[in-house]
């Protein structure tokens, strides 16, 4: 019987670029920037890396297909490099590949890198992503905010909420992330709009206004992973380990079967249950101390608080407005680095960017936004649309915890 991933793999080093509209950088520049920080943090040379996973979602906007672009950009020593893509979970998937390789004992040291270069499309927003020749026949056209906005209408209907109450809580979600992001030198957006500005912003996809949507950013994040024993042998004292690593994909039930009401994420709930079990967490509201969730849109973060079983069902609005997820005095601070909302969302890099924040917090290296007593951090990604998606999740902590 498999025992799960808990404490089998340690993070030896991490790197992350400044996120944003990096018109100055191509994808190879971004990879070099993150990887240089990561190598230096790990204290190893490139020749020590035995296998690598390259996460990139929209390959046509970055460097084309296959994993070779990363191998070339980083001059990797002819090691196996695998490209993974699982929409917005791509970064987490790259991490999972590297972590599993180490856990399997196949290699001692592996690299996971997530990269996205979105700002060469020539227009704002995400590039067009096809549903394939069959899907294009019948799926409605949509934008990313449009499909996540669906959650808001179904959530409001389920809980019989006035639109204004939901919108107010969504505004607090974004307000909080802007407050946090302004403290992060690597964040894409550092401005601090007021609640009134957020509520009054132009509508993108009802009820999501401009400030309910995350940034479309360029960026890269990476991690070098190894066993806790090797990490110690490299002189790491506070060894940060993986406590859980889960992915859950939709199987068509949400969009196709009446048993789903459109107001929550089936995959997040499935992945969370498995992740808590893998990490040995019984009461996430008490035990998880920080969150980086997939706040592609404010409403996504709101329902995710319930899907992670941290807020009770129907209770996210109260928790949010009570400041439960705020950095100051919040019980479980969420998006401490600014989140997708303000750190930015280079699709393939986001999962690793979240893990990077957990890693910094656990090592007391988070600067102005450092939390007190961080112990267990949960990261969460969602790719696709609420009705059909993939969820990626990790729980990161110290080996000693």
């Amino acid at each position, binding site marked *: 019987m498999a025992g799960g991933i808990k404490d089998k793999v340690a993070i030896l080093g991490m790197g992350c670029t400044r996120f944003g509209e990096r018109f100055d950088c191509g994808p190879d520049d971004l990879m070099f920037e993150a990887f240089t920080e990561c190598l230096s943090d790990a204290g190893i040379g490139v020749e020590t890396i035995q296998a690598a996973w390259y996460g990139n979602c929209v390959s046509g906007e970055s460097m084309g297909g296959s994993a070779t672009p990363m191998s070339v950009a980083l001059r990797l020593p002819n090691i196996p490099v695998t490209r993974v893509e699982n929409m917005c979970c791509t970064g987490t998937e790259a991490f999972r590949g590297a972590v599993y390789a180490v856990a399997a004992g196949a290699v001692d040291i592996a690299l996971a890198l997530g990269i996205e270069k979105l700002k060469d499309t020539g227009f704002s927003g995400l590039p067009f992503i096809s549903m394939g020749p069959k899907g294009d*026949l019948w799926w409605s056209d*949509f934008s990313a905010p449009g499909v996540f906005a669906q959650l808001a209408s179904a959530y409001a209907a389920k809980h019989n909420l006035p639109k204004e109450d939901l919108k107010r809580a969504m505004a607090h979600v974004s307000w909080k992330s802007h407050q946090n992001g302004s403290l992060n030198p690597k964040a894409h957006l550092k401005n601090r709009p007021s609640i009134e500005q957020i509520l009054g912003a132009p509508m993108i*996809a009802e009820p999501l206004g401009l400030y309910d949507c995350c940034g479309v950013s360029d960026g890269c994040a990476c991690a070098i992973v190894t066993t806790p024993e090797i990490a110690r042998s490299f002189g790491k004292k506070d060894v940060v380990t993986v406590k859980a690593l889960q992915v859950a994909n939709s199987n068509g039930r949400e969009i196709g*079967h009446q048993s789903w009401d459109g107001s929550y994420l089936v995959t997040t709930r499935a992945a969370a249950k498995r992740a808590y079990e893998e990490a040995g967490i019984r009461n996430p509201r008490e035990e998880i101390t920080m969150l980086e969730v997939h706040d592609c849109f404010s409403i996504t973060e709101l329902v995710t608080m319930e899907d992670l079983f941290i807020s009770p069902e129907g209770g996210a609005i109260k928790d949010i407005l009570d400041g439960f997820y705020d950095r100051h005095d919040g019980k479980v601070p969420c998006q401490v680095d600014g989140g997708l909302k303000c750190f930015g969302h280079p699709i393939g890099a986001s999962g690793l960017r979240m893990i990077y924040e957990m890693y910094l917090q656990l090592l007391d290296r988070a600067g102005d936004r450092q939390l007190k007593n961080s112990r267990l951090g949960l990261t969460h990604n969602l790719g696709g649309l609420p009705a059909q998606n993939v969820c990626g999740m990790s729980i990161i902590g110290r080996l000693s915890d």
Partner: protein
Amino acid sequence: MNDVGISAYGGYVPRLRLSRESAVRANDWVDPSLMMNAKSERSMCDVDEDSVTMAVEAARDCLQGVDLGSLDSLYFASTTFPFLDRQNSTIIAEALALKDDVETLDIASSQRAGTSGLICALKTAANSCTTLYVSADCRKTKAGTANELLFGDGAAALALGTQGILAKFIGSVSLNRDFVDHFRGDGSRYDTYFEQRWIREEGYLRMVPDALQALFKKTGIAPEDVTHFIMPCVIRGVREVVAKRIGIPPERIRNDLAAGCGETGTAHPLVMLVDTLEEAKPDEMIVMVGFGQGVDALAFRTTSTIDGFAPRRGIKNHLANGVVEKNYQKFLSFRNMVEIDWGMRAEAAPKARPSAAWRKHKEYNALVGGRCMRCGTIQFPMAHICVNPECQARDSQENYRLADSTARIVSYTVDRLAYSPHPPLVFGIIEFEEGARFLAQFTGCDPETVTVDAPMEMVFRIKKMERERNFRTYFWKATPLTNRGKEK
């Protein structure tokens, strides 16, 4: 010839109505005389409608309660086919889920096509070949013309056969004359019209009375026996002069639906016929004229069966449930007459892949999902494994058509970021009364009033338009059930 006639009828007028005044205001600097036609509205296709989609909707209006298996042929008359070489009537047949051995035929090339095709279809139907006859037009006119104001978009459908006749075909006369009142040559986008007084004098006033006299002589009908006289003509007063010359009492002249609809091209005699049948009583004589390179004149006599039939909605209901569009620029844009900058996002859409569409053509063209024969779950699209998590039976599904089912909105949004040629894009998850659901595009949906649980119905529309290849794909969209008023 066996007794043959109309056994069911239906019509369609798009929900959008262009305010004529808005068009006049934009163009009267070119031609102040346009003011003469500034009253009321004309019907206009939404950006996702064309002659094929209107014909499908008219046929569905007609075919309520009709056994589709009884239909042997489908004829489609139009002068505005979306495809010049790809049979348009076959698209309609597939959308309606007709038998795959139904004989299909497109009829074109004249404003008389609608009536000439009908005569031909009646002859086919007389040979025990039950025929669905549909006609639709959405004519393109240059900006700033009177015809732009006088024309409209619309469709009509008739089921023709020897059983259940509610209007019996009495006879017809066709005169052919190479009279070039207007023409549209190969590759031209617009018609060229010649002097209206000449068309009136040498065309309508000379040819139509000849045809009617021949019809009366052939059938033995007296002019005063005519209960309903149907004659489309956008030239003012022509109908009245013809009726007077031939001896048809003026009160028998049918309204040409200029208010709210406009002349729907080659479909218009049929649109007016459907409008007439909706209020006709048993044993009334209907005489109908089609004009274009000659004249068709047809006579029908209603039977007692007419009281027992009503279309799903009919022309009158469609006319009563319109939405006035005062933005003339939208009308131009929907007809691809003005180049709007839709941004780079609009360029990104992938090209249609007919090989992929063909693989599932019946499912997507006719909105056929699957019904699991083990657990009964109805789902869309049909899949190898049942979507019910409690069942998951393999290869257990039979066809189940959802096109005529109503649905409710599970979730929705009004999307101002996604490209739409008629922004904002409104879409959401809909759930059919039988349980199947998918992420559907909404059309004819007011962004201000859309709500969760609102009842929706399905309509056949253009899904994607590829301007460079001049190709279009069709699929079903959801529209508020309340748009069209009550069904009969």
